[in-house]
């Protein structure tokens, strides 16, 4: 009886150990899988346009770095550095609102239209010309 219990106990222990081991392995496995997906670096391409169509000369920069691309005559770009999920690209062009795009698991081609910055353009020129009162001519 005693021996049986001991054997049973041993079996349970072994089973328990195996279970914990498997769980650990599985969890590692999932971690690995996630990391692998997130760090999988890939080339990102895209097309930038404005209200008139494809926009050549737009800047695309990896946020926080100086790595960047410029759109070609057809508004297309291929980012020079391989990117991973979570990276943020900053799209900008003088006179247009800067837009940030986060790279997700599914991103491979980015199509983006930049919208004009609706700032009202005004301007006064400073001068050193002395003020002269308007006087009635005699």
């Amino acid at each position, binding site marked *: 009886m005693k021996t049986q219990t001991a054997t049973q106990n041993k079996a349970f222990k072994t089973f328990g150990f195996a279970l914990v081991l498997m769980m650990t392995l599985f969890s590692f496995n999932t971690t690995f899988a996630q990391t692998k997906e997130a760090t999988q670096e890939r080339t990102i391409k895209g097309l930038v346009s404005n209200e008139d169509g494809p926009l050549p*000369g737009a*800047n695309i*920069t990896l946020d926080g770095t*100086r790595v*960047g691309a*410029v759109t070609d005559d057809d508004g297309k770009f291929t980012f020079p550095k391989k990117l991973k999920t979570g990276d943020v690209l*900053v799209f*900008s062009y*003088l*006179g247009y609102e*800067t837009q940030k795009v986060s790279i997700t698991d599914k991103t491979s081609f980015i199509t983006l239209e930049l919208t*004009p*910055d*609706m*700032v*009202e*353009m*005004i*301007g*006064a*020129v*400073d*001068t*050193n*010309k*002395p*003020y*002269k*009162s308007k*006087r009635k001519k005699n």
Partner: protein
Amino acid sequence: MQKTALLLVLLFLSLCELNAQISDFDHINFKKADSIALSLKGENLTNLPELSYKLTSNLKTDAERFRAIYRWVCDNIANDYTLYLRNSRQRQRFKKDSLKLTAWNTKFRTKLFNRLLKRKQTICTGYAYLVKTLADFANIDCKIVQGYGRVSTTNIETLDLPNHSWNAVNLNNKWYLCDPTWASGIPSPKTNKFIFQYNDGFFLANPKLFAVNHFPVDKQWWLLYGSDIPSFETFLSSPILYGNAYKKLELHNAPQQMHHNIKPLEKVIFKYQLKDNTKTQNIKLGFDNGFSTWKNQPTSISINDKSLEVEHQFTQTGFYDVHLYIDDDLISTYTVEVKK
């Protein structure tokens, strides 16, 4: 909880009341920032994130990083006087037709950004826009402030549409004002062609001095509180300040009115806080009575610990444009009518 909130608001307000200005950064030498800006002279605007990076990456504090951006814009962007004139004409023409005004603004905006990109020429908003954009890339919180700017050649009594843009920038959790357009240069008095002539006085200027010729549409950009904020009427009747005033003056204290009606032998009193002490013989008044112009020493001048007080007694009747000069630089203008 409410009490704490109230206390926090009060603390915030009291902090804001401290005048945000360049003297907060006395401990910082902007030479390095300026030399970086200078070394990048001639760079073009096709890659703004890169330009912003080059200007700021070797500088430690936000104040220096912002300074490099501001200085670069002031030294490299020309004010396009013809564009300015065309825009003000059209804006006047369409001021009562908001649809046409909006259509003009849209058309002009595109033209202006093209001109800025290709020729590095612009008008005020272009300067303010560029400073803000470059600052954005450097993660510095900077705003464009739209409003009214008063100079000697604008129709100063009838400013009816906003005509000027400048910047507010947040450095170390405090807002400051600067005017890159007016800091960059002035049109040549003879040819009206723009001349680069950097004026350091417009960088993080004293908001009280700034308020004499800058009226923001959005009230928060006065960076002043209570009775320090002028009404629009008061603003329109203020003395005229020139760019040099920002170099020489810390404050323009009196008179607060441009025009004065006095009787013969009465005095007009002028009070200023100077940035640096100067000799009394360097203070002069210029007069124009419509027939002739002359420069003279005022009746009395006193300079006491950078506080300048000038008195002038008018003996002859007439209508005078009165200009203050410090070290031969034109600072401000007033009008005085002397009548029996």
